[in-house]
């Protein structure tokens, strides 16, 4: 029982970090069919910006998050404009993989050229530092904060997609891009907005999740695969699927690391193979 309570908060927090970062990728892949391996690179940009804002500019934590999200979106604009637009929907996976790996290498190289090859601290505010008494046991307040962020993100996205005008256009473009275009939805704008949303979410996740996925020079490459796996297991374009996949894989990974640390990511990938083999379109995904 003690072990269960030890694992669960960490698994939940880790899963929520995975969700916050991966959901942007999931929506993007569902909509634009781009296997965007550079998604983690945008999360890394967010982390670097937040660290810079907190340490060098001395702003408060919420402001740093804002700077990170807005900064990452601004930085991503030229990439969207020059490169991603060429590979929306039409090109084959191999082209997308290579182009986005190229973008990742480029971003990693530039980020480290500017900020140096050491890992970057993202100091927490006093409020999130201490432990929090759950009654059953104490857990770090930051874990609760991360879980809260994940829940808020999920609810906000659900509302955005199901209840707003933008959501309607988005879903129409996902289901049938050509038809949506014919009906007067300007899909290019929907695509660009979605790309910005995806990058913003990645940056947000990169900052709040920095305790669990530390911001370091090879961040973008190290977690590249993890984010892609979450999307694939959940089913591209599905918010609930991404949430379920994140929690499931977070649990598999955290449990594996607690109970058999020497096996590393062995259990994580066994879980991935089994799930993907049984549900090739993801837990909640649909065949395209």
């Amino acid at each position, binding site marked *: 029982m003690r072990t269960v309570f030890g694992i669960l908060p960490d698994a939940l927090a880790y899963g929520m970090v995975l969700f916050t970062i991966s959901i942007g990728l999931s929506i993007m*892949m569902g909509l634009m069919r781009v*296997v965007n391996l550079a998604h983690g690179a945008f999360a890394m940009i967010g982390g670097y910006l937040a660290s810079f804002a907190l340490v060098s500019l001395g702003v408060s934590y919420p402001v740093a998050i804002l700077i990170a999200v807005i900064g990452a979106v601004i930085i991503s604009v030229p990439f969207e404009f020059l*490169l991603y637009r*060429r590979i929306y929907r039409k090109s084959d*996976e*191999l*082209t997308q*993989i*290579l*182009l986005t*790996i*190229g*973008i*990742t*290498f*480029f*971003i*990693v*190289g*530039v980020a*480290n*050229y500017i900020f140096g*090859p050491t890992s970057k601290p993202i100091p927490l505010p006093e409020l999130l530092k201490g432990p929090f008494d759950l009654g059953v046991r104490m857990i770090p307040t930051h874990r609760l904060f991360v879980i809260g962020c994940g829940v808020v993100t999920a609810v906000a996205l659900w509302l955005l997609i199901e209840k707003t005008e933008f959501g309607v256009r988005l879903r129409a473009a996902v289901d049938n891009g050509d038809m949506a275009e014919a009906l007067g939805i300007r899909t290019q704008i929907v695509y660009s907005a979605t790309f910005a949303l995806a990058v913003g979410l990645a940056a947000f996740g990169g900052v709040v999740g920095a305790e669990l996925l530390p911001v370091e*020079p090879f961040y973008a*490459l190290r977690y590249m*695969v993890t984010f*892609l*796996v979450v*999307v*694939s*297991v959940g089913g*591209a374009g599905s918010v609930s699927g991404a949430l379920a996949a994140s929690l499931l894989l977070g649990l598999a990974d955290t449990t594996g690391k607690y109970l058999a640390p*020497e*096996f*590393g*990511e*062995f259990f994580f*990938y*066994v879980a*991935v*193979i089994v799930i*993907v*083999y049984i549900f*090739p*379109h993801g837990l909640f995904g649909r065949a395209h």
Partner: protein
Amino acid sequence: MTPASDTAGPVATAGLRNDLIAAAAIAGLGAIGYFVFPDDLAFLTRVIGLAFLVISLDLVTGYCGVATLGHAALFGVGAYAAGNACLAGVTDPILMLLVGIVAGTATGLISGVLVTRFRGLPQLVLSIAFGQLVAALANKLSSITGGSDGLAGISPGPVFGMFNFDMFGRTGYVFSVAVLLIAMVVLLRFARSPFALMCRAIKDDTLRARMIGVAVYPRLVVMYCVAGAVAGLGGALTAINTGVVGLDSVGFERSAEALIMLILGGAGNLWGALIGAILFELFHHYVSAASPFHWMILIGLLLIVVVLFFPKGLVNEVVRRVGEFRQARGAR
């Protein structure tokens, strides 16, 4: 060598001529390497080992259209198997190569059964997961892989009982070029076989291939076994030449790099795979000395440029240009 040999039906005499040209080309390249860069033989030998991985990847990606980011697993298992065979007393290099081939084929079988079942994103993720699984195992099973320290102390005996491996890597280099020459000629023949042509058909239009009665899944699995044999051969060769096998030989970076090399040279063409490996490694060799992050910026830009402007790879682009040139001259 010419594009016609890859696409037109195999003609026996033309096939033999092409094989001879291929053998001469590799022998010539090998000789240039040996006499022009006598101090870099260890580096060139490493490139040849990696070239096998890229050629193997070409068999599944270029010929079958399977997108994979876990191909280094086949290479690494071959290397570990050959290394362990050597430590267990099988020190004959040829036997070690055979061990690598067998281990690579077995890994290719498992990997192929898993990966070729689906297309698209599930396929990609399964290939990654398989590769990461093998990497995690290589880290964990330290009794046979040496864990993060790697497998060391592999000292193969003389080739044919006559040629000892020397510290300058001369024997290793000549041995590697010879293995490459034989393997390349065999594979070029294989690439012209009805089997490989059918794989191309599957790549171009899976549905149509299935409609004319092609058993798609078994074919892809068999191709994966062949690719496993080639990658295992390369792994074993690398183990023989370097004397160590590290975790990097199964890692994700190795898989991704192999894919980059392949696209750089040109997928669907075994020469493209070979030349892509050589170009990438030369680029790496000369640029990474500056700083690992400068190197990453440059390789990133190179990749973006190649994908946008030479989507079929450099070799195929050159072949296309030469073809157009000939046509233009013929028309005149």
